């Protein structure tokens, strides 16, 4: 039986067109990208690399920026936060309380190294409190790092306003756009963004390719020394097949894909109303088209994800039991949910390879499994 995969925000299936674009760079053009003074094999690969770089910069309307290829969004985030902080030597950093774990953990590490970390809060739907942000930034603030789209509930931040605040306060702004690009247009000629993280595996590209887009004027210290790759900001040979795949994935992503994914989510949110005692944790407007985070009251999330897993449905939960750390989702807690509500939360994330039929099936499974677990629950009183 084929499985129903609703964890597309974590990683998507690679599109066939993307895979086909990548294959020659394993089997024919496998040389290391190298300068015009080297051999033909290396030059062909170099061209593909530079084409991808130019394409991405153009897509973002980034005229005065570098595109530094990295291995993952986590690496891009490390380069952004540590690279800038190490270049500045001292000061403070402002991040939101609902950043993805890499940003949270990079910040904790920087704190150990003497940098001060300030956390800006969010409202119940995950939108950053802009007044608080403004008050947290001072003359010692090096960098603000606030994501574009949230990984758990899909909240889409107003990166235009955040960028304006940073510019007005004279500090740098880094936005982690791993989960938003290329779903949402990002025009760097209009936005005050100094550093931008983008991935590839969240929109039908491969794992192993990501980028940090950096404004040319930003001082940044490399974290990986090596050859002369990537503007001397990231040593090590580039993962050319993955970068070629990333290029292709951006190229073929279009509004139809966006709209189809959105229609799946809308359909799911309509159908899920058939189950009583639920809470939709995702914002309905200004959010990722494919993320629906739902709490099923009176039950615990790991039990539900396990039952769904046995039926062939892949989802994740914000429950502590699910995580290695045994801590409930910091995103949901920061949005003001009680631990109890966080424990019962499930994230469904839809992608272009999903179907309406899969949603119908999942709703039927949910009806049975939620009812079963509620019968078990001492918290649930029927009627």
């Amino acid at each position: 039986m084929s499985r129903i995969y609703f964890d597309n925000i974590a990683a998507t299936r690679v599109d066939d067109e993307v895979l086909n674009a990548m294959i020659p760079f394993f089997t024919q053009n496998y040389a290391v990208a190298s300068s015009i003074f080297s051999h033909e094999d290396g030059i062909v690969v170099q061209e593909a690399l530079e084409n991808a770089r130019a394409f991405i910069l153009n897509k973002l309307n980034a005229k005065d920026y570098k595109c530094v290829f990295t291995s993952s969004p986590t690496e891009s985030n490390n380069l952004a936060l540590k690279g800038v902080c190490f270049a500045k030597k001292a000061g403070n950093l402002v991040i939101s309380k609902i950043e993805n774990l890499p940003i949270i953990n990079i910040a904790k590490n920087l704190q150990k190294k003497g940098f001060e970390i300030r956390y800006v809060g969010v409202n119940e739907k995950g939108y950053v409190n802009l007044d608080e942000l403004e008050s947290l930034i001072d003359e010692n603030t090096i960098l603000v790092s606030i994501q574009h789209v949230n990984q758990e509930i899909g909240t889409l931040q107003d990166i235009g306003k955040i960028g304006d605040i940073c510019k007005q306060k004279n500090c740098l702004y880094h936005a982690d756009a791993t989960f938003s690009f290329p779903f949402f247009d990002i025009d760097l000629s209009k936005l005050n963004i100094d550093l931008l993280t983008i991935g590839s595996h969240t929109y039908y590209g491969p794992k192993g390719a990501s980028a940090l887009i950096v404004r040319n004027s930003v001082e940044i210290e490399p974290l990986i020394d090596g050859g002369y790759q990537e503007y001397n900001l990231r040593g090590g040979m580039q993962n050319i097949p993955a970068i070629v795949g990333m290029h292709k994935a951006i190229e073929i992503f279009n509004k139809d894909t966006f709209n189809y994914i959105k229609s799946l989510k809308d359909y799911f949110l309509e159908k899920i109303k058939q189950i009583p005692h639920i809470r939709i944790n995702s914002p309905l407007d200004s959010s990722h088209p494919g993320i629906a985070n739902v709490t099923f009251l009176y039950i615990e999330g790991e039990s539900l994800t396990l039952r769904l897993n046995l039926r062939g449905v892949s989802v994740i939960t914000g429950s502590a039991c699910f995580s290695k750390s045994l801590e409930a989702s910091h995103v949901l807690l920061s949005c003001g949910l009680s631990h109890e509500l966080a424990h019962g939360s499930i994230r469904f994330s839809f992608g272009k390879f999903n179907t309406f039929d899969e949603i119908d099936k999942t709703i039927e499974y949910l009806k049975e499994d939620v009812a079963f677990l509620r019968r078990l629950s001492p918290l649930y009183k029927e009627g």
Partner: protein
Amino acid sequence: MANVPYSKKVMDLFLNPKNLGEIENPDAQATEGSPACGDMVQLQLKVNKDTHIIEDIKFKSFGCASNIATASIITEIAKGKTIEEAKSLKYSQVVDELGGLPAVKVHCSILAIQSLKRAIENYEERNGLTPKDQPTDESLIKERLRGVIDPNTGKDLISSKILSNIEFKDGKLTVLLNLKDTSQFANAIKEEIIEKFQFRWDVKSIKVNFLE
């Protein structure tokens, strides 16, 4: 079947739990853990007054698969045993019966054992079986308050510093909490505290006071 982190026995009990539900007019009951921790077990007992044999036992559970499976297996192990036999059960026996648990889930078996012990204590207290040489004192009170969880923080009353003061004099227990009575969870916490002490042979009244 999909890959799962649990033994076959855990999965069997997770999917088809035994002794699930509630007993009408139980002779004893206990609820340990809290929804805030994502781990909660309720046990109810029917005990033969002459033989002290646990004749029936039922559970309800809010938690992960191992929580459900450990609660289920403990009902099977305890059924038919005397309360003395049941009291001496160890969590390692529960883990063994289940064919092992992932290391991060062993705490579920401890919670299940704790629930059984509390339910038996509850039976003993209701029936005047508590040895009178163990009077209620500060350490016993604190130990029990560690079993009361603040749903806001997911921590117990002691480690969350919600407990401000306790006084126990002439059978009168007074608990003062660093919490306003307008707090969303004030009443739930109060009820849980009363439940912990209401059958103690030497506790005559329980008062839970909140901040002004």
